[in-house]
Every structure is written in C-alpha cells, then in structure tokens.
C-alpha cells in the first residue's frame, strides 16, 4: 500500500483516570485512505485512545488531524472537522427513534441537500434499520443498535471514522457484512481507525495494525504480518 499523507497522528499519548493510567505514552499515525486497527486485550486502553482523539477525555501528548493540533478543540468541533466515532457500547439514544438518531448525526453538516442520499445509503446497507425507522433506539436488539451506530457515523460523513468494536454482539452474517461495509466505506474515501476484539477479521481488512498491551504498543506491522506473528497469534487469535 502506497502511503499518502498522514491524516491523524498520535504522539506520546497518555490518558489517566484518577490514579489509573489507561494509556501510557503511545504513538502511531494513520495515513489518508487507510484502515488501521488497534487490537489488544480487555483494558489495554484502546477505547481510551479513541476517546482521547475525539476529545471527550483529557490527555497528555499531541494528537493532530491534518496537521492541526486537536488539543484545544472541543469535542463537537472535532466531529465537525471530520472525525466520526462509533463509540463502545454503541451509544444509541434510547429515547429517540432510529430516524432521529440518524438525523442528529447531521447536526454539523453544511451540505443539507446531500443528506437524503445518505439516508438511502444507510438504509441500503442496513435494510433492518429502514424497517425500524420509527422504533425507539432503546428497544432495538443489540445487533440493530450496532447497525444504527455505524449508520449514524456514516450520516455525519466524516473524513475519518473511529470504530470501537463494531462487531461486538453481531450475528456472523452481520459481522461479515459490517466488515464488507467498512471496506466499502473506506474505498469511497473514508479513513478508518478500527478497534476490534475480533482480531482475525480486523487484521484481515486492515492495512496496518497496532497491538496494545496494558497501555503501550507491543507489536506493529501490516495486517498480514501481524496475522502471521506467532506471539500475536498465541495471545489474540486463539492459537
């Protein structure tokens, strides 16, 4: 994969919650047009890293997007700059309908006339959402909620999408579908930073991957390299 320009760069990122240091000085970058995956055990600090990028937790270190330092930019402006996140646990607004959840994600979009097309795109990818437009988010099944969360990120039309375990709790057929969709989204120009437990799948779609272990980066390489790395295999791919 030929490398374009650096879109997102994370340098010496440190995130702590009170006395707990969740991320202990990691650095990595994401090039324009890539899919990069972060894998690692529970509690390794993957989600915290994503939260730091989106500006919803304070951090030490530098994060730049298109060369701009994100530190002093509030979370909502970061979204407007083009970083969308599918948060861990989906973050669906349970008291809003499916349609309203999607609509809300267009808050900072300027290209209002493009929005209907994007709804159509989301409903094409997830026909189930189209059936459930009027249902309250809180009563959707786990998988339906995950679709909605991804759909919502699509609606905000970021240049970059951060996904936190999008395959969690999904039926196999949907997992495959999600990964296919991710590839599609990526091919249509969105850079993706993907956090996954399903390391097999993640490394297969990713251009590059980083393995986090208790707050630091333990391994890095292309997706295929990591898939073949015996230490990675043993710890994350189930032998």
């Amino acid at each position: 994969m030929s490398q374009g320009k650096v879109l997102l760069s994370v340098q010496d990122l440190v995130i702590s919650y009170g006395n707990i240091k969740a991320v202990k000085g990691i650095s990595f970058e994401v090039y324009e047009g890539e899919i990069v995956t972060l894998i690692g055990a529970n509690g390794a600090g993957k989600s915290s890293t994503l939260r730091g990028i989106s500006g919803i937790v304070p951090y030490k270190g530098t994060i730049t997007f298109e060369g701009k330092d994100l530190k002093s930019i509030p979370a909502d402006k970061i979204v407007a700059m083009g970083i969308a996140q599918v948060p861990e646990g989906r973050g669906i607004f349970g008291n809003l309908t499916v349609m309203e959840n999607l609509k809300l994600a267009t808050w900072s979009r300027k290209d209002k006339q493009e929005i209907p097309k994007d709804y159509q795109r989301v409903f094409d990818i997830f026909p189930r959402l189209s059936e459930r437009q009027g249902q309250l988010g809180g009563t959707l099944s786990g998988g339906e909620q995950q679709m909605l969360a991804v759909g919502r990120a699509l609606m905000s039309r970021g240049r970059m999408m951060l996904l936190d375990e999008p395959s969690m709790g999904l039926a196999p057929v949907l997992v495959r579908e999600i990964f296919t969709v991710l590839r599609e989204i990526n091919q249509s120009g969105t850079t993706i930073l993907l956090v996954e437990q399903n390391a097999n799948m993640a490394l297969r779609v990713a251009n590059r991957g980083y393995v986090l272990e208790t707050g630091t980066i333990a391994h890095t390489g292309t997706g295929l390299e990591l898939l073949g790395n015996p230490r990675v295999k043993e710890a994350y791919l189930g032998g």
Partner: protein
Amino acid sequence: MTYLFQQVLNALQLGSIYALIALGYTMVYGILTMINFAHGDLFMLGAFFCFLAATFLHLPFIPTLLIAMIGVAIVGVLIERFAYKPLRQAPRVSAIITALGVGIFLENFTLVFAPYPQSVPTLIKNTTWVIGGVSISSLQLIIIALSIVLMILLDFIVRKTMVGMAMRAISWDKAIVPLMGIPLDLVISATFALGTSLGGAAGVMYALAFPVIDPYMGVLIGWKAFIAAVVGGIGNIRGAMIGGFILGGVEILVAAFLPSTYRDFVAFTLLLVLLIFRPYGILGKPRPQKV
C-alpha cells in the same frame, strides 16, 4: 349550571397557571433529568423583576414581560453554570439537593431586600365580562391562551426541531452527545435559558393575576407545579399541561362541591390514587430499557 360553568372556568385559570410553571419544570427536567427545585424561586424572581420594571421603570406590559424573562433566564443560566454544571458527573440527587439549596438561597436573599409583600401595578387593563351569570376576565383568557400557545410551541421545539432532538438525546446520555458534533454546554444552557425564562413569564402572569408578591411565593406553587409535571409524566411537555389542568381542576372542583376544609386531603388522595393506577403519570412512560 352557571355555578358549574363558573367553577370550570376557575379551574381552567388555576390549571393554566400550574401548567405554565410545570412547563418550565418539565423542560429542564427533559434535558438534565434533574428536578430543578429552584424553579419555583426563579418563578418568584420573575414576579419581582416584573414588579421592579413596572414600579421603577414604569414600563408597559410587553417590555416588562421581556425584561422579566431575560432577567430570569440570565439568573437561570448563571445558576446552571456555577451550581449544576460541576455536578454533571455526580449522582442525580446531588444536583437536586443543590437546586433545593439554590432555591432557599434565592428566597432568603430576596427577603433581605423585601421583607414585606409588594404590590404589583396593573399592567393590563383587566375587564370582566359577565355572560349568563358567569364572569370571565380578560386576564383569565390571556393566561389560558398563553399557556396553551407556549405548550404548543415547546412541544414543537422538542419534538420536531434538531435542537429538541439534541435536548432529548442529552437526557438519555450526555457523554455521547458531543460525538454527534453537538455542542453540549451550549444546548444545555439554551434549554436552561428557555426553561427558566418560561418560569419568569409564569411569574409575571401570576403577579398580574395575583398582584401581591413576596419572596416565598414560589415555594408552595413550585411544589404544586412539580406535582403537576410528574402527574402528567415528567419530561413530557403535553403531560405538564395535562398535569397542570388536572391539579387545578381537582383543587377547584373539590373545593366547589365538597367542604373546602377537605380540599387538600381529597385532592392529594386523588393524585395518589391516580399515580397508583398510572405509576408513570398520565403521559409518562418508564424509560425504555432492555434487559
């Protein structure tokens, strides 16, 4: 028959006043899921702003109303910033208790400057028409109309607009809202300003209908509006309206047809029974949750 009509009209007026205050209550509740126990006292401030503007600046009705609404909104936003915002991550009751404290503070602070009840000058010429033995006053009609208009307006904002959606989203999960590109603090402040200015407006209307005001006037009515909001289904705009009318209706009609000594007893027992049969209020639903 005239008697009944008159009493129904009385009930409508009282109900619309309760509704007017309950609207602001429900509005703030709707976003922060926090009972703003200071709302009754912001309502009182509204009445006092009205008094000051009308007595010392000799302003007519509309400017007075605006001044009161803006004044109360500013106080409301300040309170939000300094007393409630630091508690966003804290348990819900902490903010409720803080609100209680803020309310007591507002009452007694006002009291230091106004230990005696004050009389509010007439801003709207109040004509009374007698139709078939039933008296209707213009003020009554204005209050009823105002509360209905505000209810429809708010209902529209909350249900149909983007801002309204954002408000509802905030009530569900504040943490996720910024990830949608929504400026959380701004929306919260805006809602707070809106909700409290409604309280201010209610204060003005109340001061015109009952032109004797004092620093504690918001306490009892604040609790009653809270009851109205909850009976209707707290967080629900239409519910607040219905709750207000139910409470007003029950109070008036019990006093009208039973010995008035028993009014509170019967009225509150009825409300209790109502809540036993509709545990989440008339229009309220328990927060949908999946197990």
